[in-house]
């Protein structure tokens, strides 16, 4: 499928004025909840700096930490699989399920498996995968990708969820009550959990020191999926490792407060090994992460803990929607960085899906310098920009390099403004009759002939 560039894809939401207002408000509401939760932590900035330092340390020592983690986890009976690419993850998971004749799988939220295209692969193998996070289940039934890292169905209104459930789960037509809709989904999911032969989960943190896997959810769906069937397959990127168990509370606090404004996620499960008579497999995926690790200008993006706060605060995301960033990449500022870094030739335009306002960097619990990274990515993909943009900027640089030349061109362009079609002229503020430099010359002349003046209007107050 060819991907539409962000400015084009954004129009699906932004051209719908009322829906854009609604989406902006819904997402901003979560940013406001984050602000309230953060204001309760007296030492938030200290915690943030600590978290950033631990994550940076983790990157510097990733090779040792990941080896230490794998050794400790396997000593508890976790079977480790290494997946250098997305295809390796698909083959590994598909192979594990096929070997055991698994046909029905429940899966909790994992952006990594979205990144690697796991669901379509398993479907092609004839395996039925049911997403069990409520938001993910909704978008799965609608055959849409998630539009947010932590709230996959934030782009949908209640009435749309009601219509989807009416079609797929047989809820009454016109039902929009969130509680009744959730109960309907739960009834359906309970049967899926009980009938599942395997559960797939993501991983939020992997503790190197003791080989523990940490999975956070608000619905307990990962726990049901991991505990009911005899096979649990967890999938994680190499960037999920943290050094010590003592670091975990720092990240649990920051993750929940940044993501949804909760003090902690409702369910935080620590898996150390398989339960009796069951198997626990862990697929550790690289898929471009080690290349990013070798990129000094961008590697801090690997410290991301996937809280989604940068999405909620991003004024562009709130108006363009998560689907404008494309399939298989995370949406929002972090998605723009990771997407454009992984595939500059196809996703380089994402580096331009930002005003560089800086809010994402400020809100980030681990201080990823997202705006600076977007600028780096813009520079790297500069040759792929449209010809008129490249030519325009080169001409602009030539003109502005010399003040005299700039003034000549400025006079000419100011005159030419009147030739613009009306619509274009409205989008461009009209030039003044004389430039500041010309007014300044006149003023200097006046002051040398007449001495110092007390210029300035004598009226105060707004003129309408």
């Amino acid at each position, binding site marked *: 499928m060819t991907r539409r560039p962000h*400015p084009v894809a*954004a129009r699906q939401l*932004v051209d719908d004025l009322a829906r*854009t207002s609604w989406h902006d408000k819904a997402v901003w509401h979560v940013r406001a909840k984050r*602000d309230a939760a953060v204001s309760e*932590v007296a030492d*938030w*900035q*200290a*915690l*943030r700096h600590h978290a950033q330092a631990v994550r940076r340390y983790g990157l510097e020592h990733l090779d040792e930490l990941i080896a230490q983690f794998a050794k400790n986890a396997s000593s508890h009976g976790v079977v480790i699989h290494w997946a250098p690419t997305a295809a390796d993850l698909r083959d590994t998971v598909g192979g594990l399920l096929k070997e055991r004749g698994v046909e029905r799988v429940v899966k909790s939220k994992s952006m990594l498996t979205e990144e690697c295209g796991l669901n379509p692969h398993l479907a092609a193998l004839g395996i039925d995968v049911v997403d069990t996070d409520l938001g993910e289940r909704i978008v799965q039934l609608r055959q849409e990708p998630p539009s947010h890292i932590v709230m996959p169905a934030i782009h949908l209104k209640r009435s749309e969820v009601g219509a989807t459930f009416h079609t797929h789960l047989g809820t009454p037509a016109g039902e929009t009550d969130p509680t009744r809709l959730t109960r309907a989904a739960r009834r359906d999911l309970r049967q899926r959990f009980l009938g599942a032969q395997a559960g797939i989960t993501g991983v939020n943190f992997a503790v190197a020191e003791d080989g523990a896997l940490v999975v956070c959810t608000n619905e307990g769906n990962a726990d049901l999926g991991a505990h009911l069937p005899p096979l649990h397959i967890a999938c994680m990127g190499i960037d999920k490792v943290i050094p010590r168990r003592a670091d975990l509370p720092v990240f649990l606090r920051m993750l929940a407060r940044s993501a949804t404004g909760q003090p902690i996620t409702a369910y935080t499960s620590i898996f150390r090994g398989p339960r009796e008579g069951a198997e626990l497999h862990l697929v550790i995926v690289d898929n471009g992460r080690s290349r990013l690790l070798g990129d000094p200008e961008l590697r801090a993006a690997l410290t991301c803990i996937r809280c989604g706060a940068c999405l909620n605060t991003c*004024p*562009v995301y709130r*108006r*363009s929607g998560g689907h404008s960033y494309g399939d298989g990449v995370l949406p929002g500022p972090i998605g723009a960085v990771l997407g454009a870094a992984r595939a500059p030739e196809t996703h380089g335009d994402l580096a*331009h899906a*930002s*005003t*560089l*306002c*800086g*809010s994402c*960097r*400020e*809100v980030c619990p681990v201080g990823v310098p997202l705006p600076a990274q977007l*600028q780096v990515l*813009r*520079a*790297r*993909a*500069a040759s792929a920009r449209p010809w008129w*943009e490249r030519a325009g*900027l*080169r001409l*602009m*640089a030539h003109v*502005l*390099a010399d*003040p005299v030349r*700039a*003034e000549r061109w400025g006079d000419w362009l*100011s005159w030419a403004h009147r030739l613009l079609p009306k619509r274009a002229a409205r989008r*461009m*503020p*009209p030039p*003044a009759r004389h*430039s*500041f*430099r010309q*007014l300044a010359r006149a*003023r*200097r002349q006046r002051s040398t002939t007449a001495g110092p003046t007390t*210029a*300035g*209007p004598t*009226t*105060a*107050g707004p*003129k*309408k």
Partner: protein
Amino acid sequence: MRVGLYVPCFVDRLAPEVGMAAWTVLERLGLDVVVSEDAPACCGQPFCSSGRPQLLGDLPGDFARAFRDCEAVVLPSASCTAFIHHHHEASARAIDLRAVTDAPPVFAFLDFLWTALGLRALPGRFEARVGLHPGCHGLRELRLGTPSEEGPGGPQEVDPAAALLATIDGLELVLPERADECCGFGGIFSVTEPHVSARMARDRLSAFSSVDVLVSEDPSCLLHLSTVKQGGPRLMTTAELVLAALGAAPSPTVPSPMVP
């Protein structure tokens, strides 16, 4: 005190009155104002933010040489100030390194009055409900104020614009619920993503629907807002507003000019 006044490219052509207002106010403060003919036409920000730092050429060197005799340079644009402050030194060519590292410090207009001149109040009168729009680069790069994302435990910086404007007689300062949301300009962003950009501008304006005047240290934000504005508040830069407030009032005395 010898102070440079640097008027950036778009203000030069689209809003020269902003530069003139800043000039008048600085003169009324008793400063020796240098408006250099040799100053480059542009600070170079558009090239770096669009991913072409190589097109910056020697603009940082030109800037440093034009104002080498000044103790400070004032810009009626916080965004350009942030760019010069953070990027000129890093991107200067080796041959000009000395000139650029020795360049005088740069200040946005009211930050100069607050930080360099030490003014804590402004005389004059301005009878209006005034909304303040903090430009993103002034706020989040120059830390002119505390961003709404900050949370407890960090440095709580004073916004010189809010602090000084609030002292003007008759002026009622209004801050919207979303205190520091971006106006949607973003330079090249407004060209490459015109629809999202315009939508952001409309939303930003509607956040200020109850004020008479919308003021900002950043004329670029105001110019962007003006392209979608239909009715609504009057748009003024801080320099224009301070000048209008001063009117015929006696000029403020500068306590003890000092440049950090």
